[in-house]
């Protein structure tokens, strides 16, 4: 064995090199405050290795990016873990960057003769942030897509070359295949290569000038190996454990629904860019894209010169602490505003629903060559929720929202439709206080109609107790998939009540006097034959002004088919969805 090492050393001189690397003097002994540079190197090394492994699974195109990430996350053995480590180590890198920067600033390690190395460090910080930004888009999910759209639009703010620069980075005007291929080339090729080059120069310059010692020196001098390396390795292990812990806790990195330019999503960057996002609420985009980065660049360039005096050094420290405090405050504000914004919360829940939905469809059908986004676009439930939100929710509600979970600003002026035609829903409908409330017809002319004033309002408590029976009969007509049908005997009994055969309703009036229920053409009020069934619901949405329903008494309900507002297919999708599940 020794012979082999000797042979190798003769030809490469590796022992000298190793000695040079390991026996760097550490003045004042090994200290924890020196670990951050090594931790960052470890984090970058992890990203290069895990990134290369991820590369083996990733396919950058608009029809395959999300799909290949989905495959890795859910179909590949341990794929979620690999992705999670890369994702959380990227975030750890940002934290480590700040810690390293602050150690350098506080210790004054940016001052002569280390100015150049400080500037290289700042460049590395910029490249790392660019790596985060480009990596965020690659899964091609809603979150990455919309956040990157904002980031690249900011690019257009750069004077003169902005729009051209944006086009070059995006690969055209629209986001698509070329956006992904370019971002991927940047993320996996250009930027890491730049970072490797910068790391080499950074370490060379670091070695040239040695460790900047923070006085007073706590101990006598020692060497990099093993004292400082032990501290470095322990810190790296702690980071490793934190990243593994986060990966296990969150079961890997999140994957939202596939990117869809037609499906809105509240664009938010990753947490470490949130301060900038929040700042753009108060200052013009030009500030975010040009003035602030230019000012930061200038400050970083000037910092070694500002810091030559004690007060200048204090100013530098104050500047960075203020910047961090401001960023933390803006980040907290962004979180807090989002938490209080009901529409934002609903949008996140909707995205989570879509993410789960697309997974269940993929399990069932697989992913077609056109991509997973088409699964969601063609999904009847997703379409129904969107159709309800677009065409129904300005008057109706579904579980109190617009069908997708979003709160609605307009006042509710038509019935709540979750659990439509179920026994519970009809029972409440037949109760006077609900009938005239906003939940049903409180916002319509029917609030003061015959049914409300002359029928429901006049029932005695004994008669009111019979209404759930009528509700059972009506709901049975709907043939809802989640309710059991009445048996013949029960049906007969309830029909007798509908006809008031035993004069249970004391005023002698029977439901049948106004409402037909057996297609015999009785009554002037809405025909309840097959009430709530698919056929009834479709026909009602198609034309509520038909004599079978409201006729001339219709109060603002649009005739969706007659007026060509919805296609027959869309009406069928809505009917299926409204009848598919009970209210929450």
């Amino acid at each position, binding site marked *: 064995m020794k012979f082999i090492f000797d042979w190798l050393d003769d030809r490469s001189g590796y022992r000298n090199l190793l000695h040079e690397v390991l026996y760097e003097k550490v003045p004042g002994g090994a200290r924890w405050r020196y670990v951050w540079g090594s931790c960052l190197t*470890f984090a970058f*090394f*992890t990203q*290069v*290795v*895990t990134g290369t*492994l*991820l590369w*083996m*699974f990733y396919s950058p195109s608009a029809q*395959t990016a999300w*799909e*290949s990430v*989905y*495959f*890795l996350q859910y*179909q*590949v*053995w*341990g*794929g979620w*873990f*690999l992705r999670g*480590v890369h994702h959380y180590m990227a975030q750890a890198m940002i934290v480590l960057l700040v810690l390293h920067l602050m150690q350098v600033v506080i210790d004054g390690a940016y001052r002569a003769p280390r100015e150049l190395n400080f500037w290289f460090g700042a460049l590395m910080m910029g490249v790392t942030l660019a790596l985060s930004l480009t990596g965020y888009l690659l899964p091609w999910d809603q979150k990455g897509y919309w956040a990157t759209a904002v980031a690249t639009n900011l690019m257009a703010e750069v004077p003169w070359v902005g729009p051209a620069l944006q086009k070059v980075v995006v690969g055209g005007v629209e986001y698509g295949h070329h956006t992904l291929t370019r971002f991927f080339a940047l993320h996996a090729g250009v930027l890491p290569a730049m970072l490797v080059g910068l790391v080499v120069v950074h370490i060379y310059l670091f070695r040239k000038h040695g460790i900047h010692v923070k006085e007073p020196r706590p101990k006598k001098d020692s060497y990099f*190996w*093993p*004292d400082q*390396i*032990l501290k470095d*390795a*322990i810190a*790296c*292990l702690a980071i*490793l454990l934190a990243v593994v812990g986060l990966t296990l806790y969150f079961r890997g990195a999140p994957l939202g629904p596939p990117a869809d330019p037609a499906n809105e999503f509240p664009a938010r960057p990753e947490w470490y860019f949130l301060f900038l996002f929040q700042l753009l609420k108060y200052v013009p985009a030009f500030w975010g894209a040009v003035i602030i980065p230019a000012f930061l660049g200038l400050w970083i360039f000037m910092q070694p010169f500002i810091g030559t005096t004690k007060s200048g050094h204090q100013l530098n420290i104050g500047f960075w602490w203020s910047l961090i405090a401001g960023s933390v405050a803006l980040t907290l504000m962004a979180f807090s505003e989002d938490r209080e914004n009901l529409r934002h919360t609903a949008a996140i829940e909707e995205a989570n629903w879509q993410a789960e939905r697309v997974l269940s469809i993929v399990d069932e*059908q*697989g*992913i*077609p*060559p056109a991509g997973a986004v088409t699964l969601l676009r063609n999904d009847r439930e997703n379409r129904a929720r969107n159709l309800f939100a677009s065409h129904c929710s300005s008057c109706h509600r579904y579980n109190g929202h617009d069908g997708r979970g979003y709160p609605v600003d307009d006042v509710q002026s038509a019935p709540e439709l979750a659990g439509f035609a179920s026994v519970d829903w009809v029972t409440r409908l037949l109760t006077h206080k609900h009938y005239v409330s906003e939940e049903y017809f409180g916002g319509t002319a029917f609030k003061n109609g015959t049914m409300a004033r002359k029928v429901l309002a006049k029932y005695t408590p004994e008669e009111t107790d019979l209404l759930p029976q009528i509700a059972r009969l009506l709901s049975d007509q709907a043939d809802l998939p989640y309710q059991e049908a009445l048996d013949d005997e029960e049906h007969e009994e309830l029909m007798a009540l509908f006809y008031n055969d035993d004069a249970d309703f004391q005023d002698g009036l029977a439901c049948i006097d106004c409402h037909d229920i057996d297609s015999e053409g009785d009554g002037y009020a809405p025909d309840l034959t097959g009430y709530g069934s698919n056929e009834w619901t479709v026909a009602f949405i198609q034309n509520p002004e038909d004599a079978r329903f409201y006729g001339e008494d219709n109060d603002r309900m649009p005739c969706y088919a007659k007026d060509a507002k919805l296609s027959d297919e869309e009406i069928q999708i809505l009917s299926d969805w409204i009848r598919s599940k009970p209210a929450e």
Partner: protein
Amino acid sequence: MSDHEPEYSGRRKFIRVATLGASAACGIFPLASGLPALLDPIKKEGKKGDDRWSKVASLASLPNDGAPVKFEVIQEKVVDAWTTYKDVPVGAVYLTRKANDVVAFNLKCPHLGCVIDYRKQSNDYCCPCHNSSFGLDGSITTQNSPSPRPMDTMETKVEDGFVWIRFQHFRPNIPEKIPLT
């Protein structure tokens, strides 16, 4: 000094071992975190069984004299990693008819997977890559044939006048015919 030496040495030794251990853990971790994913293809097996039957041609389209005809094999559903394709060609076969029976040969040479040609003039098969040649029954006709086994046949059946085959690929360059899974 001599009293402290062993303790001191022991401590230094511990520091060195601990440093090496922690450094090794950090060095191995990135690759280890992706090793299961990297080795995933070994863990996964291809689909087996009768679900791979494909309808290839009508029996009437095959000449009665046993001359081979080349057909694409189209499978109803093919899953390639994340994408599910429908009705896509997955390979090709030569079919030869013997009365109401049909023999199907995989187009891939059992040597190294080049595509075998049918030579009308000599009425045999030949692999243009390394010159393996095969008779109409698929048997080896070259001396010192590069191909270690005859052409690969696949299960066939005739139903309602149509030829169905169970399309498979086999491990190349071994004497035994072992399906790839």
